């Protein structure tokens, strides 16, 4: 597998939810590829931060199930040639949203005891910016509306933070070239 294929597996590898064959392949690749190893470190750091934000560990299989669901959702309306290869930004957004969803579930379980919100005021915009930074706004700007993640609420210890993945008035138009058709053919 090349780097691009390996990087599709990294979110699941970081979550310890890859099958045996894929895990071995990723480990072998990481043994000699510093670039993929660095990307894995970032996933692990992001995951560690999320683990710190939420309560408890997710039940086995949650990571994989949510990732698959999200990947299918992101494939809606994407040209066939692009479907199997979500970009790094999508992958990381997916990984982070999975973590957020798990955090949300954990929070719901202990909502009774949580009490009123007590997040420091400065934390809210910082968290919003951080989460928003993981969502591929530039790609979303050129994608159908169905592709853009909905606004959601990030629940962490001590409070809730509303997050709009695509900030208002942050869409700038620039279509992307998908392919180069045969250069000498003309339609008329």
């Amino acid at each position, binding site marked *: 597998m090349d780097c691009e294929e390996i990087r599709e597996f990294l979110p699941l590898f970081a979550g310890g939810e890859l099958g045996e064959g894929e895990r071995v392949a990723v480990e072998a690749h990481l043994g000699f590829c510093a670039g993929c190893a660095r990307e894995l470190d970032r996933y692990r*750091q992001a995951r560690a931060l999320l683990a710190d934000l939420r309560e408890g560990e997710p039940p086995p299989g949650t990571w994989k199930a949510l990732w698959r669901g999200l990947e299918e959702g992101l494939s809606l309306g994407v040209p066939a040639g692009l479907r199997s290869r979500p970009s790094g930004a999508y992958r990381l957004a997916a990984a982070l949203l999975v973590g957020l969803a798990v955090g949300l579930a954990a929070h719901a379980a202990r909502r009774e005891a949580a009490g009123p919100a007590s997040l420091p005021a400065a934390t809210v915009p910082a968290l919003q910016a951080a989460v928003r930074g993981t969502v591929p706004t530039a790609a979303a700007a050129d994608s159908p509306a169905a592709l853009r993640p909905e606004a959601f609420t990030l629940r962490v210890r001590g409070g809730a933070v509303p997050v709009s993945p695509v900030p208002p008035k942050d869409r700038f138009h620039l279509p*992307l070239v998908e392919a180069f058709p045969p250069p000498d053919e*003309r339609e008329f």
Partner: protein
Amino acid sequence: MTALGFLLILPLWRQGAEESILRRMEREVASIVEKASPWLVQVTATFEGPGAAEPLRCSGFVYSRGGYVVTDAGAVESAAGIRVSAGERTFAARPVASDRRTGVAVLQVAAPDLAPAVLAEEPCRVGAWVVALGNAYGMRTSVSVGTVGGTGRSILVGGRKYEDMIQMSAAVHPGDCGGIVADSSGRLVGMIHSVCPTGVPERDGALGLLQLFGKEAPAPEPRGPAPLSFATPAAWVRFSADRIIRHRRMVRGWLGVTARPVDEAMRAQLGLAEGAGAEIVRVEPDSPARKARLLTRDILLEFDGEPVRNLEALRYKVASYEPPVKVRAAILRHGERREVEIQIEIDPQR
């Protein structure tokens, strides 16, 4: 003696006064920007209804007196409202029509005094310097410089094919689409259309989190070569915009075929002269070509009394008809020459 001294000093004085190439280039680029930037506008499209998208911003330019502005069709075609900002002024714009084959959309604003762009009459040359002006990420009059890397390019964008595009190395960013590509004389040679993202460093979403928690964020790593940008050539911008302004909708002739040059082996087999004829590789359903019973693998020899030699010229000729009009064509099928009559129709812009 004084005259002799002057003659000795003159070459040294001239050497000191001579401008460097970089300084001259800098002055030229600044002069082009000064000339073209008054034509540049910012276009903001707003959307309504449940699940409506956020406003979308791009670029455009003043096309002609009467407040006609040209921008990219993809940005405005489903907009509920459009605003055009020129200098310090902002106007509500009315969409006139668009041409999906060139990506040109024409808007009209109540500002007949806006200075229109000067479009180049001749096509730009490969290797020529170009200056791209747009509104990158909403930053007004963002400028980049590059060269024309190729002309006559075909690209697929949003599932739609665009032909005869200019390929260039000038950097183009979100928000620049619909902007100006100017040549070294400061004339508009193209409209910024799209970018091929190959090699764009991927946005690393972990950066935001790392920065939030006080960790050092690594610099993004460039992956692959620099991206290519594409522009609609001035000739097609002029063609689409003039038709739209004249008819208040896009009217272009349509035959309904895809054709390619006859390859060498086939040419030798059929005994055709070099460059002669075009092989039909696709006939659109319910098209004039289908109705005239043209088939794939037919060789188009003559069209409207002229031999077929240059496909781009033929494409332009067919587009130039204002239907309905009947033309005669000569084809070669199974080695036999046939004459057909084709009723050219208005391109349905499918």
